[in-house]
């Protein structure tokens, strides 16, 4: 029913036309339309004429299959984490995670909640954190700029890290997701 094969390790091999490809990747960031927390409301203005993310080539895609970036917008509960893992793994490589707000960094105001995780990095490889509670659209664009810079420099390798250390991430994920029923890897 589901594809249960773990992913291949991507390795470090150079691709053809790496530089051009990196430029293209940086300038065409497609974002999965998935709001995990309160920060999702701050993403909407990005598309409006005031902030206009399309000028950077950033677009919203309604399906993870076609997206490059997953934005964890604010606090992330354990229940949502399960869905986020699935969405993230369904995104095709290369893929990037951008985390918004204090909650993803250290739990923020929900640090002592029974179902909100504190440090996102333990569960998913975050490429860019954007600080704030909540970050304003300007900050998010800032974050995108940083991400674009990292991609151009070839440093946004969270997805490689995730695949190479899948066991570590899985262990952490399984520790807080009590009824783990996902496949080994969600293709």
């Amino acid at each position, binding site marked *: 029913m*589901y*594809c249960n094969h773990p992913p291949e390790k991507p390795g470090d091999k150079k691709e053809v036309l790496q530089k051009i490809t990196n430029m293209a990747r940086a300038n065409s960031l497609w974002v999965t339309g*998935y709001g995990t927390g309160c920060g999702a409301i701050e993403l909407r203005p990005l598309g409006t004429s005031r902030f206009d993310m399309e000028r950077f080539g950033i677009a919203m895609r309604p*399906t993870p299959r076609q997206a490059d970036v997953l934005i964890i917008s604010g606090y992330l509960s354990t229940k949502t984490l399960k*869905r986020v893992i*699935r*969405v993230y793994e369904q995104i095709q490589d290369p893929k990037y995670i951008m985390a918004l707000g204090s909650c993803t960094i250290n739990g923020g105001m929900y640090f002592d909640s029974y179902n909100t995780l504190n440090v996102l990095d333990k569960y998913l490889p975050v490429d860019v954190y954007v600080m704030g509670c909540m970050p304003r659209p300007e900050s998010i664009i800032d974050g995108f700029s940083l991400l674009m810079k990292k991609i151009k420099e070839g440093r946004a390798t969270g997805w490689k890290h995730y695949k190479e250390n899948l066991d570590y991430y899985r262990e952490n994920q399984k520790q807080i997701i009590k009824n783990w029923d996902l*496949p080994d890897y969600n293709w």
Partner: protein
Amino acid sequence: MVKALAVFLPLLGAFINAWLPGKHSKASRFVSYTVLTAGLAFVVLLSIQLGAWNLADLSNSVIFHSGVGSPPLSINLEITAGGTLAALAMYAAVIFSIHRFALHTPKSQPLILAMLTASLGLLFATDIFNSFVFLEIGSIATIGLTAASRCGSRWEAAIKVALVSGLVTILYLLAVAVLYRSTGMLTMAALGSLSGGAAVLVSILLLTVIVTELKAFPLAGWGLDFYQGASSNVAGLYSATWSLAVLMWAAKVLPLLPIGNPIIYAWIGAGGLVLSQLAGLRAGSAGRILGYSTSAYASLLLVAAGTTTGAFYTRTVLVLMVFSSLSKFSLFMLGNPWKNRGWSGYGTVLMLIPVLLLAGIPPLPVFWAKFAFLKHLALHFPVVFYAVLAGLFLEAVYLFRFWADRSEKISVKAFSKPSAVAGVFIILVAAIWITQLWWGQLDFSGSIIASSTLRNIFHALFAAGTLLCLPGVFKRIGSERNYWFWLLISGASLTLLPAAGNGITFYILWEISAFAAVVGVSKGTGARNGAFWYAVFASFSGYLLLAGILLSRGSFVMAGLPALLMTLAALVKLGQFGTHLWNVRTYPAAPGTMPAYLSGTASKAAVLLLVAVALNATGGALPWGRAMAWAGALTALAGAVLAALAPDYKKLLAYASVSQIGYILVGLGLASILGWTAALYHTVHHMIFKMALFLGAASVLYRTGTTRFNNLGGLVKKMPWTFAFTLIAVISFAGIPPLAGFGGKWLLYNGLVEAGWLPILIVAMFASVVAFLYSYRLLHGVFLGQLSPKNAHAKEAPLALLLPQGILAASIMVLGFKPTLLLNILVPALKAIPGLSGLAPVIQGDMVLTTMGTWNAWMVGIMVMVVFGIAFVFYWISGHKPKYVGQLDIGFAGEMPPSADEVHYSNNFFRPYTRALAFLPRIHAEKIFCGVSKTFSMLGDGVRMLFTGDGRTYLAHSLLFLVLLFVFLNGGM
């Protein structure tokens, strides 16, 4: 003296039996069987002596006197050659059924034997008063037999018989008295010497007696009640002996009555036939249905007496009456669920043969008599002809309903009973024998379709269609039964069809193929309904065809009404919208590869008929071509829309078949070379793709056990080859260029533009776009989407089903890339037909040119293939190796789909379409047909009000009939 033993031996047996003691006496059975066997032997000897087996001349006879003195006191019998055959049937019926009485009511054996004697006596009587004696004996025996089982309804039936025979006695004796007083003689010949008032009086009295005894229409009430009320054994025996005897006796007396113009019989008969059969549509019980059928045959006898004379009359009446009586006998015996109710595959067939006999379907003997008789009527009495034809069709309808209702109730044991086996056997042997007599009329010169190219195309089409269906016949599921035999028969007669050289040959082959297919269909699971619809529509189109042939006075078809009738026959057979009901009921119900045969191959017979009609009637252009084209275009559209909304794979294909056939009609209606090229090209193409699709459906059904879209989906992984072949067929019929289907559309559109029929063009184009809806529905509903866990066990179709599909798909590819292969054959042949207008398409190599358009299928195909190939290779070598993940692993808002069934979109697939169409009034052909059937039912109910079920009413009927006759005949004089 010895010869009379044939008549009186049973009487002897009756006397001995009556005196024998005990209930279950073996002795009585021994006596009965001995007497009957001896009598039968005598009859056989007599018939041989009289040369009855040579049906050409039935006039030989021996005269026999006995008793005291001379007539009228003595018993006078004239044993005719025809009569011996009837007697044979009676003896056979009694021998085959008497054991049933022996089990339940042993005391009835003397009565049976007495009835047999009375029947035989009446059969051979030449004397009016003798006839009276036998009539009385027969009535008494009937009453006794009927009342033998002490049950309310049977008593009632017996009392009605008694009442009527009382009245008959009075009237008859009056007639005898008048006759004797006027002429001093009581022989039948004396009737001829009557004149003046006495002649009228005797005629009226005797006619009333005869009509009453015959159970012909206005006076049929008591007979119906009798058949319904009596036990089926009694009714069966009665119809095989006494009823047959009365019919034969009436046939003897009627021409002798001094009534003036005998056409009055024909009027009584024809009117009665139509009205009684209308009422028959509403009949519920088996007995009553067969009673109506008896009434129909009595009416036929009246018509025959009024319109024919001499040897023709004798022979027609003999064949009609003997075989109808025997069939009714077998139906009563078979339809009697007296033991071990159960379903038998043989039951349907066993029961269908007598039904087909009664309905007069070729090559069974009744057909030959009916055919000759109807031909005579068509030539000389057209109005009577139409009435008789209508009545016969109505009869066929309720007989088929009876068959569909009852055939499941036949006991398995019935088949093992010697009576049933022998009955069927005798009927069949006799059928072949009689058919032999007429064989000379058949003509296989193929002169109907003058062009040998067209003929060969159709030969090849039918043969290939049948052959491709054959490998898969054993891949059946569940309760489907063996149908290959019937498929083969049907296919064989279809293959012969283009070779038919005259109307009768064409008709016979047409009907054999249709009714063999009906039997084949009835083998499906729960296919009774489908088979019934098919039988009704097939016989309707058959009667239309027959009428057309008979009205054409010897040639195959004449312009005008016959051609119109035959066109209608073809349209019904094709499932023109309005009559498409049978397609969408029959195809889904038919077993295994049968629907592929029906839709792909058998429906092409109607195309052949249309071609034949057009060629023979006008040389190409039918005057109603434009109407036909409109009908075709609307059929295409309506069929396509209905197909898109169909919830079932086979049903969808049935509607698609209706829709695609519309294009053929448009092409033929054009009556131009382009139009006919399009039509015939599409005929070939339709046969190929529709068979591929239906074989695909058969494969899916075989592997999953269902054809409902709700239960299917995702089979592409399990049945990749079936999917590939279906895909090719679908791309083709959708008309997408590199494959064959586009050619037909292109030719058709060019033809339509050439003729300037733009509105039809628009409708046809729209229909072809709607075809995309159902083509995708079909592919997605069955093969794409999610695989239901219910079908997880499914695997690739067996080779027997796959191979024909592969062949068909390959031929689609070939035809798609090189349509000129077919066009090079078609176009010259059609150019040679003088009646077709317009310019022929010019074929230059692979290029086809018309006045306005061009088409080079080869270049288009090559282009598509090359581009596709380049894309494919580029994909393949660019190092792109995507990973296969299951269908459930989809981006589903972060969730995992709970089960395949919940994410498979299949129910109400074109919902927006349905919504958009909502403003259209929902006119369903079903509703129209319901209206028609309701109207007929109402008419039938109206007629049925005559038959109140009260014996006194029936007496009143007889008297009223007498008075009316009196007024009418006196007025006429």
